[in-house]
C-alpha cells in the first residue's frame, strides 16, 4: 500500500499514542468517535445503562479510595468516576434530549474535541478494569463496564492497543485461529512432549485425545500455555489421568485457544471469538467447555457463552472447579508433605471479583499445603496484579505496570513473605513474574496445577516422594 501522505490528525495520533494506533484513518477523530458512538447506541442496548448512570452519578469519590492505580498516583484523572464522567458527558451532550436542549440555550456548553478523546484513550488504557471500584460504589456504577465501552468506541474510531488488535486479527481472520499464531503442528508436538514428560515423570503410557467426538469436556486453555507454561498443562493432564476421566475429555485441533481479548476492548470481537469456541464444541459434539488456568478466558466463557451461545449454550466448567470436585470425591489424592515452602494465593480479578472462583483454590491448597498464608485483602476484594485488561501484552508500558499498576500487589506479596505465590491466570503469572523480578521479591510464581503436579499420587505411576528425590537430584 503506497505510503500515503498522512494528514495532521494522523501524525498527531502517531506521536501521541504510538502503541495504540495501527494506521489512523483519514477522517477527523471527533466525527469518527461520534459516528461510532451513535452506531453503538442504535444497535446495542447500552442506552438504558448510560441513561441510568447519567441520572445517578453522585461524585462521592468513594471508588477512588479502593482503586489500586489511584492509591499509588493520587492524580484526579485516575479517579474511576472521573473516567466515567468523560464518556457520560459526551453521551449527555450529543445523545440525550436534555443535552441537546442545553446546547441550544447556553453557548459554552460541553463540546467534544480531539484533546478530550486523546485524554479518554490515555485514561481508559491506564485502568485494568479490575472492577474493585464497583463494589465500593453506593450507586453500583460499574466503571469497568464503562471503561470497556469507552475502549470499544475508541477501537471503532481507530484507537486500540496494537498488540491486542494484531492477536485478535490472527485469532479471527488468521489461518491458525489463535492469538499466538501457534500452528496445529506445533500444538500437537507440545502434546507429544507432554506425553513423554508424563512417561518419564510417572511412567505412564498415555495418548492425549485430540479431536475425539461426544466427549464430556472439550479442553481450552490460554494458547500461550502450550509455549510458556508446560508444567501447568502437565498438572492438568495428571489430574485428568488420576481422576480416571481420561476418556471423558478432548482437545479440539481447529480451535484450541480460550483467550478472548474481545472481553477487554470490543464486544464485536468478543462475540465472534465466543462463537468460534461454541462452533468448536459443536463440531466435536462436546457436552461442556473445560477452561484451563486463565482468568479472562474462563470469565469470558463463563459469562458470555450463555449470552452469545445461541439457544442451548453448553455449560462452562473451570479447571479449578473440576479439580476441587475430583478432590472432594476422592478421585485424586494429594500427598500433604511434599510442599514445605510457605504458599500464598493471588485471586485473578476476572474470576474472583464476581465471586465465582474464590474459595475453591483455597480449599485445594489447604488440603495439601502445610504452610498457607492469606493475602490481605484477599478473596473478592483482592488487589489487581496490574496487568489486567490486556495491559500485560503491551510491553511498551512496562515501567507504568511496574511502578504504578503492580505496586500495591508487590507490597502485598512482600507483606505475606511467601516463597510460592499461586496465580491461576496466564496474564497474572507474566505480570507477577515481572513484578518479582523488578522488586527482587524472593517468591516464585507458579500456576495452581504446577503445585498439584508435584504432590499428586497417580496409581501405577511413580509416587510423589520418588519424583521429589529425582527432581532434587536433577537440580543439583
Amino acid at each position: 500500500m503506497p505510503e500515503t501522505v498522512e494528514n495532521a490528525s494522523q501524525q498527531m495520533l502517531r506521536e501521541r499514542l504510538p502503541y495504540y494506533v495501527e494506521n489512523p484513518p483519514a477522517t477527523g477523530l471527533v466525527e469518527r468517535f461520534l459516528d461510532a458512538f451513535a452506531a453503538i447506541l442504535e444497535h446495542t442496548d447500552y442506552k438504558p445503562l448510560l441513561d441510568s448512570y447519567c441520572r445517578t452519578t453522585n461524585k462521592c469519590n468513594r471508588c477512588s479510595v479502593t482503586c489500586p492505580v489511584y492509591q499509588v498516583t493520587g492524580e484526579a484523572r485516575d479517579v474511576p468516576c472521573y473516567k466515567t464522567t468523560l464518556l457520560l458527558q459526551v453521551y449527555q451532550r450529543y445523545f440525550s434530549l436534555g443535552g441537546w436542549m442545553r446546547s441550544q440555550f447556553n453557548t459554552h456548553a460541553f463540546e467534544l474535541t480531539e484533546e478530550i478523546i486523546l485524554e479518554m484513550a490515555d485514561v481508559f488504557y491506564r485502568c485494568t478494569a479490575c472492577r474493585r471500584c464497583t463494589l465500593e460504589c453506593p450507586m453500583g456504577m460499574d466503571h469497568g463496564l464503562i471503561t470497556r465501552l469507552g475502549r470499544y468506541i475508541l477501537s471503532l474510531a481507530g484507537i486500540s492497543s496494537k498488540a491486542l488488535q494484531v492477536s485478535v486479527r490472527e485469532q479471527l481472520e488468521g489461518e491458525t485461529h489463535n492469538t499466538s499464531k501457534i500452528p496445529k503442528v506445533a500444538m500437537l508436538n507440545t502434546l507429544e512432549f507432554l506425553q513423554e514428560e508424563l512417561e518419564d515423570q510417572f511412567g505412564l503410557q498415555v495418548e492425549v485425545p485430540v479431536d475425539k467426538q461426544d466427549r464430556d469436556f472439550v479442553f481450552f486453555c490460554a494458547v500461550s500455555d502450550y509455549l510458556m507454561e508446560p508444567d501447568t498443562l502437565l498438572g492438568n493432564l495428571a489430574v485428568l489421568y488420576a481422576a480416571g476421566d481420561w476418556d471423558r475429555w478432548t482437545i479440539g485441533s481447529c480451535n484450541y485457544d480460550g483467550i478472548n481479548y474481545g472481553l477487554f476492548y470490543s464486544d464485536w470481537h468478543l462475540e465472534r471469538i465466543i462463537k468460534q469456541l461454541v462452533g468448536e464444541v459443536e463440531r466435536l459434539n462436546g457436552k461442556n467447555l473445560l477452561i484451563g488456568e486463565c482468568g479472562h478466558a474462563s470469565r469470558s466463557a463463563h459469562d458470555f457463552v450463555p449470552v452469545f451461545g445461541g439457544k442451548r449454550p453448553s455449560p462452562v466448567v473451570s479447571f479449578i472447579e473440576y479439580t476441587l470436585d475430583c478432590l472432594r470425591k476422592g478421585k485424586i489424592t494429594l500427598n500433604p508433605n511434599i510442599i514445605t515452602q510457605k504458599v500464598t494465593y493471588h485471586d485473578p480479578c476476572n474470576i474472583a471479583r464476581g465471586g465465582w472462583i474464590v474459595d475453591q483454590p483455597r480449599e485445594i491448597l489447604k488440603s495439601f499445603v502445610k504452610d498457607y498464608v492469606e493475602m490481605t485483602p484477599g478473596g473478592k476484594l483482592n488487589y489487581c496484579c496490574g496487568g489486567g485488561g490486556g495491559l500485560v501484552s503491551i510491553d511498551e508500558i512496562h515501567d507504568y505496570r511496574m511502578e504504578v499498576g503492580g505496586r500495591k500487589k508487590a507490597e502485598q506479596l512482600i507483606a505475606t513473605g511467601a516463597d510460592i505465590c499461586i496465580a491461576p491466570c496466564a496474564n497474572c503469572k507474566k505480570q507477577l513474574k515481572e513484578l518479582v523480578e523488578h522488586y527482587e521479591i524472593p517468591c516464585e510464581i507458579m500456576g495452581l496445577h504446577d503445585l498439584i503436579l508435584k504432590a499428586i499420587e497417580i496409581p501405577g505411576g511413580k509416587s510423589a516422594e520418588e519424583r521429589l528425590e529425582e527432581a532434587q537430584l536433577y537440580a543439583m
Partner: protein
Amino acid sequence: MRTWIDLAMGPLFAVTFLFMLIGLLRHLIQQLDTLFRRKAGRLRHMPWRKMARDSLGWVVPIRHLTSGNVLFSNSSFIFHIGAILVPLFYAGHIALWEKLFAVSLPALSATVADTLTIITILALLVLLASRLGNTKLRTINRSSDTAVLIVVLLPFLTGFFAAHPTMNPLPWQAMFLMHLLSAELLFVLVPLTKLSHIVLFFFDRISEMHWQLKPGAGDRVAETLFGKGAKI
C-alpha cells in the same frame, strides 16, 4: 401573602408533587422495561441473590463506613436517616398525608423531630464542606452536585424555623411560604437531577444486567460503520 400561601399549598403543590411522582415512576418503569423487555431472553444467569445482598449491604453499610473516606460516608449515612424520617413522620406533615392519601402514619414526637432535623442540617453542612474542601472531590464535582445539596438543605432549614416561631427571624407566614416554595423546588428537581436515586437506588446492582450484551449487535455496528464484511 395569604394568597401566595394558598397558591403554594394548593395548585402549585399538586403540580410539583405530581411531577415528582410521575418523574420517579417514569425512571422506575424505564429500569423495569430494560430489565424485562430488552434483556428478556438473556436473564437466565442473573445472580439475583448476590445482587440483593450487595444492595442491601448499602442500606446498612457497616463494612463501607469503616473503610475509605470515613467522615464523608458517615455524615452521608446520618443525613439519610434524618432526610427520610423527618419529612415522612413529622406531625405537621401527617395531616398532609391524611388529606392526600387518606393514610395515617404514626407521628414523631416534637422533640425527636427537632433533634433529627438539627442532625440532618449539620450532616448536610459537613457534606457541603467536604465536597468543597476536598480538592479531589472538587475537581470531579459538577456544579449541580453542590446546588442539589443546597436545594435539599433549604426545606429543612425553613421548616425548622417555621415550626419554632420563637427562633424565627421572619414573620411566620413568610417563613412558611419559603418552606413551601423550597419544598416545591425540591419536588421539581427530584426527577431531573441525581435525587432520582430515591427510586434508582434499589436498582444499584442493575449493572450486572448490563453485562448481558445484545447478541448480533457487534456485527450490525461494524456493518453500519465500515460496510459489509469489514476486516479488523
